[in-house]
């Protein structure tokens, strides 16, 4: 089973193929792509090569490693060509077959995901270790099989990384406070798979999906809420083919729906100037632009300020498509880190806090702040962390 519904052979005759060939060659895709300047073959040129019958050249270049699956090109294409959903995965799969090898760091992350269920290579037995430190009761389905309303799919960074665990603890406290009936999979949970990253490894994606669906089927719950936007999109776009038919939401829009229960408990004033970074997965892909802003505005004392590139125009942090593990590779090629580009913009707005809702962003932006020397001027917080901070005990 391939990542996209067409193959190289069926593309010309297919509806998707015809859609791609309506390209005007306007170049908005390359212009809006955060790495458009460094790619040998941004989408426009790829399609030109396709028309010229010279696709081989695209596959044998490593241009596609620079694609961070941010959806900017697809969002702007005047023809509405599904670039990130159809063309790019197809091109990436072909590149994979032709590349002598993937960069080492990315390989290791993929190997770790296969073996340990997380890209960090941490043991599966430690995945739920953070639960003890949450401060509120958290039900683990393997230990307590009663049905739950919400299955909270915590994901990898939010389970293993200290800053990700801050997010999880905050989320648990919020769920508890607003009376959500939830449970987690604990050590049974494995990475859901990330569409962008796993285009490089479709076999791994299948393995993960098979595993996760088998685990889901052991328990009873109504809906899945997840802390990771990539997991959200995997569940939304890929898992239905394997029978995933539960309600699905990311934590941020989920919490926004309970604003009536949340607002009364947000009693501590946080005198911050906050600027919100729209993550690619939640933002451009799913258009969840307002929910996080509503939540932030509900916090007393918070003043929201918008970056120039906001909502559909947001600049990717660079973590998608495998980018989280390609920083060394990009640096060797002399590319600017996208997270640094974005952080410079945020700092310019004079904000104290850069608010995010994707676990990749916390570590990427905090790194960028340190490297650029701005770490005394600005902190990075997930929306859930800010909400929890505003909640008095």
């Amino acid at each position, binding site marked *: 089973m391939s990542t996209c519904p067409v193959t190289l052979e069926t593309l010309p005759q297919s509806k998707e193929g015809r859609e791609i060939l309506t390209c005007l060659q306007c170049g908005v895709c390359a212009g809006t792509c955060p790495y458009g300047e460094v790619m040998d073959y941004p989408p426009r040129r790829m399609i030109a090569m396709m028309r010229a019958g010279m696709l081989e050249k695209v596959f044998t270049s490593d241009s596609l490693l620079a694609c961070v699956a941010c959806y900017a090109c697809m969002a702007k294409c005047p023809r509405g060509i599904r670039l990130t959903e159809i063309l790019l995965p197809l091109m990436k799969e072909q590149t994979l077959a032709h590349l002598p090898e993937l960069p*080492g760091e990315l390989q290791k992350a993929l190997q770790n995901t*296969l073996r340990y269920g997380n890209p960090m*290579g941490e*043991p*599966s*037995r430690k995945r739920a270790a953070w639960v003890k430190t949450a401060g509120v009761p958290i039900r683990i389905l393997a230990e307590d099989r009663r049905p739950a309303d919400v299955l909270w799919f915590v994901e990898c960074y939010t389970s293993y990384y200290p800053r990700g665990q801050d997010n999880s603890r905050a989320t648990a406290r919020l769920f508890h406070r607003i009376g959500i009936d939830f449970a987690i999979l604990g050590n049974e949970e494995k990475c859901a798979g990330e569409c962008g990253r796993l285009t490089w490894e*479709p*076999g*791994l994606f299948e*393995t993960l999906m098979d595993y996760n669906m088998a685990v889901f089927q052991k328990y009873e719950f109504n809906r899945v809420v997840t802390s990771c936007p990539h997991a959200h999109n995997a569940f939304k776009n890929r898992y239905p083919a394997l029978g995933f038919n539960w309600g699905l939401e990311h934590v941020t829009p989920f919490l926004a729906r309970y604003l009536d229960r949340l607002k009364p408990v947000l009693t501590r004033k946080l005198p911050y100037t906050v600027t919100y970074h729209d993550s690619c997965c939640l933002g451009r892909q799913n258009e969840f632009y307002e929910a996080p802003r509503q939540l932030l505005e509900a916090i007393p004392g918070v003043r929201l300020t918008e970056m120039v590139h906001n909502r559909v125009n947001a600049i990717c942090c660079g973590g998608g498509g495998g980018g989280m593990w390609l920083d060394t590779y990009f640096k060797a090629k002399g590319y600017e880190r996208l997270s640094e580009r974005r952080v410079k913009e945020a700092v310019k707005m004079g904000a104290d806090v850069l608010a995010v809702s994707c676990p990749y962003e916390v570590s990427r932006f905090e790194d960028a702040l340190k490297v650029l020397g701005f770490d005394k001027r600005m902190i990075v917080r997930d929306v859930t962390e800010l909400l929890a901070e505003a909640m008095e005990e």
Partner: protein
Amino acid sequence: MHILVLLKMVPDVVEDLEIASDGKGLDLDYLRMILSESDDHALEQALLLKERHGGKVTVLALDAPEVDDALFTAAAKGADRVVKVVGMDAGFTTRQAAGFFSQVIADQAGLLPADLILTGVQAIDDLDGLVAPLVADEFRMPYLGIITGIMVDASGKTARAIKEFPSGVRGEFEVKLPAVLGVQAAEKPPRYVPVAKVRAAMKSGKIESAEVPTLVDGGWLAVNIMEMKRNEPASQAEMLEGPTEQVCNTLCGILAGRGLV
């Protein structure tokens, strides 16, 4: 040329190792097995040699949990033939492992003649010996260990093997083939193979099985583990605890006290 690669699964130390209730071994319930790291390098070196000189790579692995994964991965990486050695009781030592390998190499069709037998230089559980020299002695082949590079001469009769010495020095040795080499590291890190290829190997490929007859009891050669326990290091270092900034200040004070800052 024909290269034989010998693989062994060992406990994966990424997972915490627990001791069994009898205190004499590892708790198998909590154990995951992984291909011994230097064996993985031996396989990679074999594949690199195949790419350079042509020929075949045959992989032999001893039966253990998760060994099928390792064998299918080897096949997906380019091994021509993968054979699982079965029929032995669990909990065998390295000396017995070498014996199993030797028996199967001698008995099973098509494993010999081989120009090179490659295996990892040392595994983390090689308590009572090393596989490479034991197999070499069994077949009266030359042996050299801690190898990080192999070049086979055009004649195919000798190879140049690079061996590591202390202080970053390396030695280039001429070795007459057939020989057994204990690989420390391949010339390149073990290659990545997409999961899809491994899954394809699982569907279409085949793992051969080779039964091993029971070894003659070498009781007087045996070593017995009387007791096993976790190495508790925290009792040796003085652990500094607390919030990061505080700990760093404390440490700084210690260093300053010693004139190191």
